[in-house]
């Protein structure tokens, strides 16, 4: 009897072990079987004819066959699959096995892991501020190899290289990007009502007034600052976007670097300008309630009333495209689309606020360097675009063929990023010390929208800046 029980246990456990093993084998080979876009020809890709990767470029890193590179990111399923797929050509060229690990707690965990001696080879760092902390506090970030640096010089706006540098040394190449200077609206409704996309800030305010006068049952704007324990960040984007327009990119740079105080008169002016929209009960908050409701409305819900005609405009980043319900046509002539948040003086340039991730390395093995170089190349950017058939991904890489991007809004973002007149600046809160950029700045904006004065809110944030 006992023997029979033992036997069945043994059978069952070996069975489950076998299932487990085959499951993990699937995970291991899943990436290899899918070879995305290997037949799709790229147009005018220069040295890379036919869309296949030029393996020569990675030969100089030596024989990498059988080596492994670990990648740690905040991107979790299902957004991770396009990333994993985009590495396949590199893996086939070099024989390197790239292991992916995504975590929702990435930002809290990365520093702990690096300090604890358990750093990944590569991490996708979404904030220059976090990169600076990693470099200065752990000293374990490895400078980017010359090949990567050359790629960044060739394919990116110099501003991007600056964001990947700390104390004059270049560490991390930019990876993906997003554009924040957008106002979402409904082209259908605008056509029906005869509204035109505004070209200047004054036009925008005139249009706002007109919408408010024409539509007693709706509000021109809707907004949402809610985002769980990150509540307040959409407010920081508003202030940054407006400051770049009212005071110019140079003042913006000084402000981010704390060369002028956080509560400088120019910043007060910018926040008051934003307040003329956000804190006016005549203009907000379409479909949700009074001005206060902005604080509790999640940013995902924020723009939805546009589809019901309860509001007309919603300032939010390009990634908001993912938040429209299924079946919404996101296109220039569709249910939802975005226009560039107009400049105060369009002649003086086109300020663009945006964000992105950077590739930081914690090991200086040749395979890690080769992989860094691959990720900074135009080859990878195009490969990633093709591996993301549902859209929702853009890079500031100038070698990125816009036709490779799947969704119209991604193409618009890439055009905005590659625009000659565009003056790109990185999201300021992501570059400030995190106690401000992810703490008091968020809290200050939340308190501001719920009634605190502009001066008080900015004074509060200035006092919290680390000495």
């Amino acid at each position: 009897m006992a023997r029979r029980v033992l036997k069945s246990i043994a059978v069952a456990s070996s069975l489950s072990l076998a299932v487990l093993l085959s499951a993990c084998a699937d995970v291991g080979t899943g990436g290899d079987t899918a070879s995305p876009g290997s037949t799709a020809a790229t147009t005018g890709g220069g040295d890379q004819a036919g869309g296949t990767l030029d393996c020569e470029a990675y030969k100089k890193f030596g024989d990498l066959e059988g080596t492994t590179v670990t990648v740690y990111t905040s991107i979790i399923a299902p957004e991770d699959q396009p990333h994993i797929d985009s590495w396949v050509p590199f893996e086939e060229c070099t024989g390197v096995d790239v292991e992916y690990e995504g975590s929702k707690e990435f930002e809290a965990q990365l520093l702990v892991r690096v300090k604890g001696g358990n750093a990944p080879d590569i991490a996708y760092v979404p904030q220059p501020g976090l990169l600076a902390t990693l470099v200065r506090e752990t000293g374990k970030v490895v400078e980017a190899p010359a090949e990567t640096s050359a790629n960044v010089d060739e394919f990116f706006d110099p501003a991007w290289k600056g964001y990947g540098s700390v104390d004059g040394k270049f560490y991390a190449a930019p990876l993906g990007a997003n554009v924040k200077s957008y106002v979402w609206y409904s082209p259908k409704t605008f056509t029906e009502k005869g509204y035109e996309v505004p070209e200047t800030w004054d036009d925008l305010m005139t249009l706002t007034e007109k919408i408010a006068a024409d539509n007693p049952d709706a509000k021109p704007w809707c907004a949402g600052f809610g985002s769980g324990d990150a509540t307040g960040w959409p407010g920081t984007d508003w202030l940054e976007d407006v400051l770049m327009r009212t005071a110019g990119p140079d003042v913006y740079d000084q402000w981010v670097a704390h060369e002028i105080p956080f509560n400088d008169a120019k910043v007060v002016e910018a926040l008051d300008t934003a307040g003329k929209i956000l804190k006016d009960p005549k203009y907000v908050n379409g479909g949700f309630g009074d001005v206060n409701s902005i604080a509790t409305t999640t940013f995902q819900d924020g723009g939805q009333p546009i589809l019901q005609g309860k509001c007309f405009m919603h300032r939010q980043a390009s990634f908001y495209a993912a938040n429209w319900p299924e079946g919404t046509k996101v296109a220039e002539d569709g249910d939802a689309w975005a226009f560039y948040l107009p400049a105060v003086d369009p002649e003086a340039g086109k300020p663009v606020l945006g964000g992105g991730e950077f590739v930081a390395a914690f090991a200086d093995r040749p395979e890690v360097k080769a992989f860094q170089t691959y990720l900074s190349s135009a080859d990878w950017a195009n490969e990633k675009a093709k591996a993301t058939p549902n859209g929702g991904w853009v890079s500031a890489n100038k070698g990125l063929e816009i036709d490779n991007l799947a969704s119209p809004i991604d193409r618009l973002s890439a055009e905005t990023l590659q625009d000659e007149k565009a003056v790109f600046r990185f999201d300021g809160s992501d570059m400030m010390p995190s106690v401000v950029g992810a703490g008091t700045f968020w809290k200050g904006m939340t308190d501001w929208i719920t009634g605190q004065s502009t001066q008080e809110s900015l004074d509060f944030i200035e006092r919290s800046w680390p000495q």
Partner: protein
Amino acid sequence: MKIMDKFGDMLMAIVVFALVVVLIVALAWLVGQIRTRASGKVQGFIYILPVLIMLLGGLVYPAILTIRQAFGGPTGDEGFGVENFVAVFTRPELLRPLINTAIWVVCVPVFATIVGLAYAVLVDRSRFEAFAKALIFLPMAISMVGASIIWKFMYDFRAAGETQVGLFNAILTGIGFQPVDFMQIRWWNTFFLIVVMVWIQAGFAMTVLSAAIKGIPDEIIEAAKIDGTTGWKLFRFITLPSIRGSLVVVLTTVGIATLKVFDVVRTMTGGQFDTSVLALEFYNYSFRYSQYGTGAALAVVLFILVLPIVIYNVVQMRKDA
């Protein structure tokens, strides 16, 4: 391959653990063979040695490190100064959580105990006792985050004229009042969050106190009744003194749990609208702002606040024993 490696690591760890256990037992056995007067004590010492090592390495050493960091400036590793503690007691974004935590620690144990006690007395020996107890004990089975999400819906707010999703606002608008955004009424919002914690903890209070009430000998109650003591007097002079020990346990246990409150605030408001508490800010400073020094100072303040409750609890338990 990766999972296989992990199995290997796990197997290795189990083998090492088994070896350590065997080593300790063998060592103790050897000492036991010597049969001198001290051998018994040495044997005992060998058995508690692993626990001691783990306590020192896993609790005492990190505690000392944390205290050191708390005095080491915002990043925790520069010089020696009290600026972190000054910050905790002066900067508005840290002072508010401190005051809020004090409010929590006073309110939650008191209300949870009152609710639990009243409930235990009311349902005692009634026909529906088991069912009624199950009802109030249910929230204990829900995680803090789960409970917070449930209550988030209860308090949910939509503008006047819209369909109210939240129960309270549905009731308010139903009887003709304006809807209220509960999470945004400063100062009161902390009490609305406290309700959630009381809801979770009342079941625990009720269970312990109900058992204590049942433990009062029938003779005492009968004697009191013969003497003409009934109702409130019976409760005040017989029941309450008899369950004093259990009351202390409930108050202190709930008090310690409350000091550590984190999930409720993080889930419901994210610490915004002046609702933040110490444990949440400790997490923020240590892991989100990488200001380990300030985070450590918050942890030390929390620790100092817990101490008197723990000491009181231990003293009471010794008295009872």
